[in-house]
């Protein structure tokens, strides 16, 4: 039983990371109907920038592990948000009126470009996050010894998702984003500047992806320029699982995928964990082709 709960917390932590990345895919898809393939590389960039900031500014020495990490997270978010907005400006916006496939090809190009830039700057070898940034102790919660890092990852992703959910559901800008995702033309008739909505999506999505990169660095301790591929694929799967374009769907999908993977690895076979995750995806898509929370395609009158 203890094993089960430990795996559950592990799955939730990993799932939270998947969910954060998946949100970036789903928000961009929702508004532009574009799969931003470069998103996974923004995630990688987040991990690398986090490492650079961590080692060069010694934030955690100066501010202590908690505030140091918080500040670090905000700096990574800000930087990756800027890169995300630039990405849109350079790679996607010029193609807004072009056929959708052009933007997809541009996304693939941007992905390769970003990945290789990271490799050129940081090298192709694995990089290691310094040890002892976060306390390596475990905390006893309800009779379970849970590593501190895991709790931090869990709390951070939960907080981020709550903040995003509030932003999307309750604020004027959030409602505008939802409206633009449903019908851009009608949104413009409401006086919504759709270009600003798109900019917003390319700021918020990458910021969350960047934090996810940082969390992976802190959680696993080592990063590589190709890490975006695996995580991106999982997060993309999570987005589809929950219903792409649907924000709560990405959250649910990510967490579910993380938990399924952890359980599969613990109880069936660690070598088959990806296969198990994708089998679940296929099963769910057979019964709900639009994903768990995806709209059942509504009739248009």
């Amino acid at each position, binding site marked *: 039983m203890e094993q089960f709960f430990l795996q559950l917390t592990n799955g939730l932590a990993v799932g939270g990371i998947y969910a954060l990345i998946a949100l970036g895919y789903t928000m961009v898809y929702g508004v532009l109907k574009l799969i931003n393939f470069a998103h996974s590389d923004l995630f990688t960039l987040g991990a690398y920038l986090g490492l650079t900031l961590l080692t060069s500014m010694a934030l955690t020495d100066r501010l202590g592990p908690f505030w140091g990490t918080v500040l670090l997270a905000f700096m990574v978010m800000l930087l990756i948000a800027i890169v995300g907005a630039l990405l849109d400006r350079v790679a996607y916006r010029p193609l807004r009126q072009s056929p959708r496939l052009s933007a997809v090809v541009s996304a693939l190009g941007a992905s390769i470009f970003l990945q290789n830039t990271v490799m050129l700057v940081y090298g192709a070898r694995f990089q290691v996050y310094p040890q002892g940034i976060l306390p390596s102790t475990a905390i006893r919660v309800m009779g379970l010894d849970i590593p501190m890092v895991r709790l931090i990852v869990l709390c951070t992703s939960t907080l981020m998702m709550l903040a995003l959910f509030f932003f999307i559901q309750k604020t004027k800008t959030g*409602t505008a984003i939802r*409206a633009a995702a449903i019908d851009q033309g009608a949104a413009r*008739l*409401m*006086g919504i500047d*759709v270009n600003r909505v798109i900019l917003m999506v390319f700021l918020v999505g990458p910021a969350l992806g960047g934090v996810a990169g940082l969390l992976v660095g802190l959680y696993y301790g080592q990063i590589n320029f190709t890490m975006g591929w695996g995580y991106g694929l999982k997060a993309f799967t999570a987005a589809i699982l929950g219903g792409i374009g649907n924000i709560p769907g990405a959250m649910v999908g990510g967490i579910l995928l993380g938990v399924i993977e952890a359980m599969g690895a613990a109880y069936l076979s660690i070598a088959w964990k990806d296969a198990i995750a994708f089998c679940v995806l296929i099963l769910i898509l057979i019964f709900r082709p639009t994903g768990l929370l995806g709209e059942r395609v509504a009739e248009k009158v």
Partner: protein
Amino acid sequence: MALLEIAGLHVRYGNIEVLHGIDLRVGEGEIVSVLGANGAGKSTTLLSISGLVKASAGSIHLGETPIHKLPAHAIVKQGIAQVPEGRRVFGTLTVEENLSLGAFVRDEKGEVRQTLGWIYELFPILAERRRQLAGTLSGGEQQMLAIGRALMSRPRVLLLDEPSLGLAPLLVKAIFQTLKEINGKGVTMVLVEQNARAALKLAHRGYVMELGRIVLEDSSSALMENPEVQAAYLGGEKGR
């Protein structure tokens, strides 16, 4: 002095010109209807007023302000709202969220709340269904929502594209009655309609469009007496 004035408006989709120089004037407080067959360019005219379609030549003025070069969202801010063809309510948002989006360009919360109260007075059914998703409303209710949503911006000019489409005759009557009431509050309207009889009954003046041109302009009563209009748009029972 016209409140809305379109002069020499040309619109092209790619290489094909669909409006060949439209002139249209709408006075303050007027209801002007635009009649015509499918493909005459009525909807395109409305879309270009709202800025969703750009003019290739000509001008559109709201009062003194030229608006044909403004982006769509800025035109709403100038005081033009549209009830688009097919209603286009945000189906997965609630009725109240739809209405609040209508007031997107307004900042004064208190006044927006007042407008919301007015909309719920005009269409009590919307108040009843305020927490419901707009996609679950009936066609008529969606049309009311689309009208209410457009009014939430407190427009000076309300553009309506086929508000009667797909609705039962009794419902059309009720909605047109409400439009008259709204006009009584000083909202100027441009009404594009296939249902020419209902449109002319409501409107003060009318234009008839054919193949991207305005072919006729007169008061509603004169248009209703016009034998050509009767034959083409009113079923011709008086003409024969």
